[in-house]
């Protein structure tokens, strides 16, 4: 349904855009309906940049993004607006996602203004109540409040509810639970699971492997802007082939192991080289399991 084809992203930095920083290199991924695809990687590996390109908040330098086979990059305002009916996002910081001087439920009103100007107020508030209940929020306790009067979990769920007001097919979720406490986390995560059941495709961006394992069928591991390993979650996590993936997996703290018990030295990795040369290609080492540079 949503497909990234050989996507590159270079940011212009320095005066008059004199330097370039290549943040995403030749990434090809796809998301099917009813599927959660996790994108995992260290800080700065380009995960957020991928999310922003899918949401067209930043331009694609090279390559293309397709929705149901049609290229969606770099079109006019009207086409972009129509695109946002089908593809929506939720971001990492719930408190930055709301304008602090306005009431939080303003995000719903904004959707009505843009997409459903003809819908009557009464009908609209019925719809809002519906989606709020859908994300297991009590409308009475979240409507009419300012963002600082609500918890991070409530705010994130309201953002998901906002996306559901539109008939979306794809949700980009960029570290949406990393700022929530553990018990709220699992609630929001399970909510994503329900969306998946309803046929949504979710691009789940995280640096937490256990979350990726919990929620998704497929995972993409990124390093220095390129994909190093991809495939079915079970395969990648039980049999990591790339040294970087092995290090990542080894570094996950486990409940029954102390820091002092860990003895394994991390494997040596290739240093970050010239980012403008294409990264090593992915080869299929097993069914539904691809690794770079073997």
């Amino acid at each position, binding site marked *: 349904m949503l497909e990234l084809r050989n996507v590159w992203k270079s940011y212009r930095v320095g005066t008059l855009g004199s330097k370039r920083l290549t943040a995403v290199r030749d990434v090809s991924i796809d998301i099917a309906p009813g599927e959660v695809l996790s994108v995992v990687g260290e800080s700065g590996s380009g995960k957020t940049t991928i999310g922003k390109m899918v949401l067209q908040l930043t331009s694609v330098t090279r390559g293309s993004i397709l929705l149901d086979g049609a290229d969606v990059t770099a079109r006019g305002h009207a086409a*972009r607006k129509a695109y946002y009916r089908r593809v929506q996002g939720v971001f990492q910081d719930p408190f930055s*996602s709301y304008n602090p001087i306005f009431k939080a439920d303003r*995000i719903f009103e904004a959707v009505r203004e843009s997409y459903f100007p003809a819908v009557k107020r009464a009908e609209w508030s019925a719809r809002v109540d519906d989606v709020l209940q859908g994300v297991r929020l009590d409308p009475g306790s979240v409507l009419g409040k300012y*963002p600082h009067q609500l918890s991070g979990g409530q705010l994130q769920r309201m953002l998901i509810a906002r996306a559901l007001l539109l008939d979306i097919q794809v949700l980009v979720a960029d570290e949406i639970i990393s700022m929530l406490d553990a018990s709220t986390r699992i609630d929001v995560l399970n909510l994503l699971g329900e969306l998946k059941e309803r046929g949504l495709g979710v691009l789940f961006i995280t640096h937490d492997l256990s979350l990726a394992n919990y929620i998704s069928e497929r995972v993409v591991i990124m390093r220095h802007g390129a994909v190093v390993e991809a495939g079915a979650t079970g395969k990648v996590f039980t049999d990591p082939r790339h040294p970087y993936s092995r290090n990542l997996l080894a570094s996950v703290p486990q409940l029954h192991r102390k820091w002092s018990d860990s003895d394994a030295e991390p494997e040596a990795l290739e240093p970050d080289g010239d980012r403008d040369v294409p990264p090593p290609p992915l080869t299929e080492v097993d069914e539904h399991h691809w690794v770079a540079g073997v």
Partner: protein
Amino acid sequence: MSAEVVLQTEPVGRRGEHLYFALRNPKVAGGLAVVLALLLLGLIGPFFLSDSPNEYVGPKSEAPSGAHWFGTTYFGQDVFTQFVHGLRSSYLVGTLGGGIAFVIGLAVGFTAGYRGGLVDEVLNMVTNVVLVLPALAVLIVISSYLEVRGVVAQAVIIGVFSWPWVARAVRAQTFTLANRDYVDLARLTGKRSWRIIVHEIMPNMASYLLMSMILLFGGAILFAAMLDFIGLGPANAVSLGTMMQQSMAWSSLHLGMWWWFVPPGLAITLIVGALYITNVGLDEVFNPKLREM
């Protein structure tokens, strides 16, 4: 004139509270009272007085009396009539010049800060060029070449030269605010850039914009008075600055005609000073930390 770039997110739901504190703040209340009282005098006064402030109506060089409240000039013009008309043109210059500068400053600042990249670099360059231009020298050159020098022309020239510091400050604040996620969320709602600037970014710097507006207004009045005083004032109208210039040109100081130059001089000082004090008061209102001090 410069502005600190302090990015303060307004406390939530405190609009009404701000108004309450603003009107209770003695600096804001006092400053506004002076500015509004003189404005009222300039607005209403001319309706009760002669339309031609340069008419020779009385005896020459007369001290203030019941017939001529502020006395008469060396040529026998009524100083009070001139003063009231002068107030009017000073406020006009302040509003128009300050308004033009405000509009340009906001347009440039928001565009540069929101678009970023190359657009920003170019606009920033223009801003810096205008900022370092010796504005006074340029104004003197332009003013002396201009055929008709009216209040409006003067205001336009002042406006075109006094926006850079506003543009810079607005740009800096917009940079920070445009990176908030709620701006991205508004884009995901299909909002156009100008709507996002007006509805998401501007409300977060409302207090700052109000204060810049006041500073620009006062700055334009002062600038106009300075131009008038060096003889580049409007040729066809009376302003507080031209009154000062005339009184000095005919050596009122030596002749002891204090009533000729004290009213306009005092009015300019009062207006600009009151605006400044209003701003200090507003700063206290918007930054509660300053309130106790």
